[in-house]
């Protein structure tokens, strides 16, 4: 399994945050997708999750805007991703690193 140490991640993605931490109204650009997090019982391995995210359009360079957050624990997220609207749970968004626009 190709996992990188937590520290290296932080250094490599200075100024970026995980998509799982964004709030409604945030917008920005996807900087990098990584196959590294291991939330409990994902049902699929990290590489499969990466490919599913890619197939939904979570790809480096894509623009996004957080439209809504779910009513309970602000989860899931409703995101405008380029031209389409997508919903995903925060736990599945951990490996999407984004750069937020200045507000």
């Amino acid at each position, binding site marked *: 399994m190709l996992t990188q140490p937590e520290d290296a991640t932080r250094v490599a993605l200075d100024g970026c945050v995980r998509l799982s931490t964004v709030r409604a109204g945030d917008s920005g650009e996807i900087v990098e*997708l990584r*196959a590294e997090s291991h939330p*409990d*019982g*994902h*049902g*699929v391995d990290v*590489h499969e*999750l*990466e*490919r*599913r*995210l*890619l*197939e*939904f*359009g979570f*790809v*480096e*360079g894509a623009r996004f805007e957080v*439209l*809504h*957050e*779910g*009513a*309970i*624990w602000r*989860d*899931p997220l*409703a995101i405008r991703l*380029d*031209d*389409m*609207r*997508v*919903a*995903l*749970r925060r736990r*599945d968004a951990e490996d999407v690193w984004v750069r937020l626009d200045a507000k």
Partner: protein
Amino acid sequence: MSEVVMRPARVALVGNPNTGKTALFNALTGSRQKVANYAGVTVERKEGHAVTAAGRSLSILDLPGTYSLRARSPDEMVTRDAVLGKLAGEEAPDVVVAVADATNLRLVLRLILELKAVGRPMVLALNMYDIAQRQGLRIDIEGLQRELGCPIVTTVATRKRGIAELTAQVDALIASGALSTDNTWHEPSAAELRGAHGEAQRILRAYVRPPERPDTFTGKVDSVLLHPVAGLVILLALLFLMFQAVFTWAAPVEDLVDGAFGALGALAAQNLPDGLFKSFITDGLIAGVGGVMVFLPRILTLFFFIILLEDFGYMARAAFLLDRLMGAAGLHGRSVIPLLSSVACAIPGIMSTRVIDNKRDRLTTILVAPLITCSARIPVYALIISAFIPSRTVWGFANLQGLVMFGLYAAGILSTLAVALVIRRIFWRGEVEPFLMELPTYKTPSVESVLRNLWQRAEIFVNRAGRIIFPLTIVIWFMSTFPGPPAGATDPAINYSLAGRLGHLLAPLLEPIGFNWQMTVALIPGFAAREVAVAALGTVYSIGDADAHVGALADQLAAHWSIATGLSFLAWYVFAPQCASTLGVVKRETNSWRWPLIMFAYMTTLAYLASFLVYRGAVAVGWG
């Protein structure tokens, strides 16, 4: 139509979900379509026929929507295998029609690049082209055609525009003898997916100019419908309306159906000589068909709402709002509709699990749906409560009988959530699939498509589920009738029948939970449907028309049963799979006997355990 009759050309429709693929399929085939299942899987197979202007006959397959040929669900596997020509019992398509939402091309372009690698002759249908035009979106169709190397047709499926052009292009491809090139498709790696995205992006930039007037309607509606407070209030109001409708609108029609079959039975009873044949016609045949048809009003009312909301684009929003709530029990946001539908009846509930795309979530929902207190339990609960629970006020405001009824409903809901969690642990090792879902743009549902879809649901239920429910009803009639009572018999006839003997045989098994043999015997015809237990108890206690004399029956039960036995019977009905129709529908929906058997086993076990605990507990406090 002068051409020699030959094998119709095979056309497969492939595309992302929400691209109007099914609308295009309907526009192409009209009413000439057939809904079935693919061999061995639960995926719905929709096939239809069309004839081109040149007279060529086309056999059109509407494949499940997908974002990728790298299949992740049984539905998507069908699409992949059908396109690759590897699906058992299916020939490879002669032409693939890629269906795209003209206003949302990015993802479908990547899918089209995958389809190109498969090498089958392809036509691209740019659907919803009117919306693209209204938004001022410009597509250089000539250029895109050259770039992709396949003909492009613009269509508006809901208005049947561009359909003749599409079939003409398919015809031209076949007539030109376009053959499949080598299949170079393989499952793409993450790097290849990124590469394909880059390629799709380049094509998009080169040939598509973004809309001048992008759609703002969906965004505006979403800011209300997805609002944490307003959204939930609207959702609850909608659900309330839906289930009110299933209970109240469907009920008169149901009474009508019930009354019609009752009248038919009475007519037959008047005109037939007494005897076995009469009993078979009235109690077996007519009651059996009636027992199937009586579900139709509920199913159609519920599906009317579901199809309408799905076509409008609301279902994905409901799933979004409730995802976390259901997630706590290991279920999917989309499980809410089937589970709430089960309050009326588990059968439409289980049929509506089709809105759940993930197979595991769907199976879990199917397995727990019958635990929700359905309306057929009400007569049984009402009878036992009126017999054993005194109608008195507790805590100053609550009626004890009402409180017990509430408790039974709560027990149903709690056990549903608990069993869902356990199923996830046992069968799927606690794994939760990633939840990624497109929130489609809102669209006005078309009357024609809603009606066609409703008709198909009715057909599926009567044809398939009916084929299982009806024979089961006949078997239960047979068992309760044969053999007949000997001459001079004093006990009720059912006592001498197979059901009666089986009841006596099973009685020792159910004795530890406080059931006497009369109850065990009544459970067997009661297997036809839960409410039948009331009539069956009436039969074994020789109360003529039990439904009409519930009071008399309740007095009998109060005289013959202890309180502990009554409570135990209630506990039994919370869990027991006393409904052959539900098992029949589960068989139909999962396409295997495995799941109805698992359901029967776990529900019977739960029922036995619950009744045992309740009975022993009640005896211990002196209610024996």
